[in-house]
């Protein structure tokens, strides 16, 4: 009875919605692209980055992926462009630019 989120949308007939609107799955919000909300965009300047990782925990949108203690490129599908990461970076490795 696990739920496939891709089979549920605003056109789905009632018989095919999940019981009690429960979701029998975790983390399905990844399919919703909040990056479209963005009006300002952070740009990652990798050459300036010292991988201190101070930027990763301050992201409200989990949009700075970390692997093997190194951050990667922004997840622009979900980044809302709040600019917190750019403010906390001690090395100027994140710049905010206007627009998406």
């Amino acid at each position, binding site marked *: 009875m696990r739920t496939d989120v891709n089979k549920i949308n605003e056109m789905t007939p009632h018989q095919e919605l999940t019981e009690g609107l429960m979701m029998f799955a975790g983390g*399905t919000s990844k399919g919703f692209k909040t990056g479209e909300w963005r009006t300002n965009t952070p740009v990652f300047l990798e050459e300036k980055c010292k991988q201190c990782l101070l930027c990763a925990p301050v992201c409200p949108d989990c949009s700075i992926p970390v692997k093997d203690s190194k951050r990667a490129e922004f997840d622009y599908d979900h980044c809302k*462009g709040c600019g917190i990461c750019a403010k906390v970076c001690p090395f100027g490795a994140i710049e905010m630019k206007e627009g998406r």
Partner: protein
Amino acid sequence: MNNLNLKEIMNKPERLAPGHRMCAGCGATIGVRAVLRALHEGDYAVIGNATGCLEVSTYMYPYTAWEDSYIHNAFENAGATLSGVETAYKALKKKGKIPEDVNYKFITFGGDGGTYDIGFQSLSGAMERNHDMVYVCYDNGAYMNTGIQRSSATPMYADTTTTPVGSQSNGKMQNRKDLAAIIAEHDVPYVAQTTLTTDFKDLHRKSEKAIYTEGACFLNMMAPCPRGWQYDTSEIMKICKLAVDTCYWPLFEVDHGKWILNYEPKKKLPIEDFLREQGRFKHLFKKGNEDLLVQFQQEVDRRWENLLYRCARED
């Protein structure tokens, strides 16, 4: 306690997925991520949630941002709801319906509306019964989900939509309720007050301690709201630092009844430094309102002295 090294901790898989609808720059989600990072890998969790911004934004059908099992019931009953889940765990373990080696942890999140106010009775009951759970209040000092109305967590003089500043009003008339102290008086094993700091050590350590201390634990986590507090979204970490350095939001814990101060600023900054950053206090800086700032400072000082006394008398 385990490793508090940020570079190590950040390698853990995220337990809050992106794609939730919290506002850009929201403090609550930063805090939630940090709390969840304190869960040990391999441990399962059930997350409870009072109605509020976090709930309507993280589980909007069919999109759940939670990688763990999650239950939202209503606004005023997150404490009771999770106490039911935790008791079910005990019952099912006893009956052998959950494997011996499976370990579940129970964490519930509520805003200050769902925690200080409408859910206070439910929280108090769950704490008094000492369920093995953690209740985390993400305190942004007003009912933000319904549009920035005052709560009992709102600081004095804040401009909110039910305490608007006007020709006859300087904002909220009352001081905020000290919820961490009230829960500590329930004689639960662990209570802490925390917020977002650059290295996240305070929040991580307290979350881990709360999650892995048996019994009912409570975290009061200040989580600024850019819309309600009226500041630029990028400034959140600066605001949190000023809250701590002005002693507006002291970092402390009450461990099995023992009050411990976790941070004392080398130089206690004047409260103006914290207030000036936020639009909700801009009327305090108008000519003629100097006495209001003095009163605000006096209240911060009174509470700070009280906290120092509580922490010192334990020595």
